């Protein structure tokens, strides 16, 4: 279970804009530690955003996405007050879901 995400979702003229800041090291698998051993890759694989159990946006991340990933997207069809839930899963099967009301 990772640390909580920061999510902001605002509806304006039928379009909801979402900004998410996930807390994850996103280790690339390219770096080496002080003894020269490769630090294994550890990164978020998938991110799914849902409103009322309907998928509104989905992302797949490789190790090249920056540490503490930021994601900004827009979708139509939600109203103020609807709950937006965001779930990520990393390559060690760790997962985190956070929910926010659309403002």
């Amino acid at each position, binding site marked *: 279970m990772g640390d909580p995400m920061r999510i902001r979702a605002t509806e304006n003229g039928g379009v909801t804009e979402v900004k998410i800041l996930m807390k994850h090291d996103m280790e690339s698998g390219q770096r*080496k530690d002080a003894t020269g051993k490769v630090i294994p890759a550890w990164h978020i694989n998938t991110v799914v955003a849902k409103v009322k159990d309907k998928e509104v*946006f989905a*992302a797949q991340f490789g190790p090249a996405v920056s540490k503490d990933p930021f994601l900004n997207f827009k979708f139509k069809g939600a109203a103020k007050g609807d709950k937006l839930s965001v779930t990520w899963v990393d390559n060690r099967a760790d997962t985190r879901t956070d929910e926010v009301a659309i403002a």
Partner: protein
Amino acid sequence: MNPKRREALRLMAVIGLMASTGLISQAQAAEWNKAAFDGKNLDDVLKAMGGSSAEKSGDVSLNAPDIAENGAVVPVGVTTTLKATEIAIVVEKNPNALAAHFSLPAGAEPFVTTRVKMGQTSNVLALVKADGKWFVASKEVKVTLGGCGG
């Protein structure tokens, strides 16, 4: 110590590791496209995403800085006027070219911004799938400090 036995043990360890990692990736996110993220260049990535070539298009716009002072955090945005169903961000000279892939269900606007790491100065490509075809726009981003070394 018998060297053959050592060898056999090592092989078993490797096979075991492969099986366990295989199992892990099945249990979690079945949709994570491993082949695409393993791709070393644009052709590999396109193939793994079910395309063969990408057509240059002025309808795809890629928002990235000319110079990135810190390769570990390069903001990249993609928008398009096409009816996009998928968007992908590719950094040509990274060890694995594909950085991120986005699926846009009905209702999602063709707009996404995220931040990626870049090992060195490279072309950044925005791929957009619309009507079953891939379209591409590219831009060179100069990196003064790499994000994948250390």
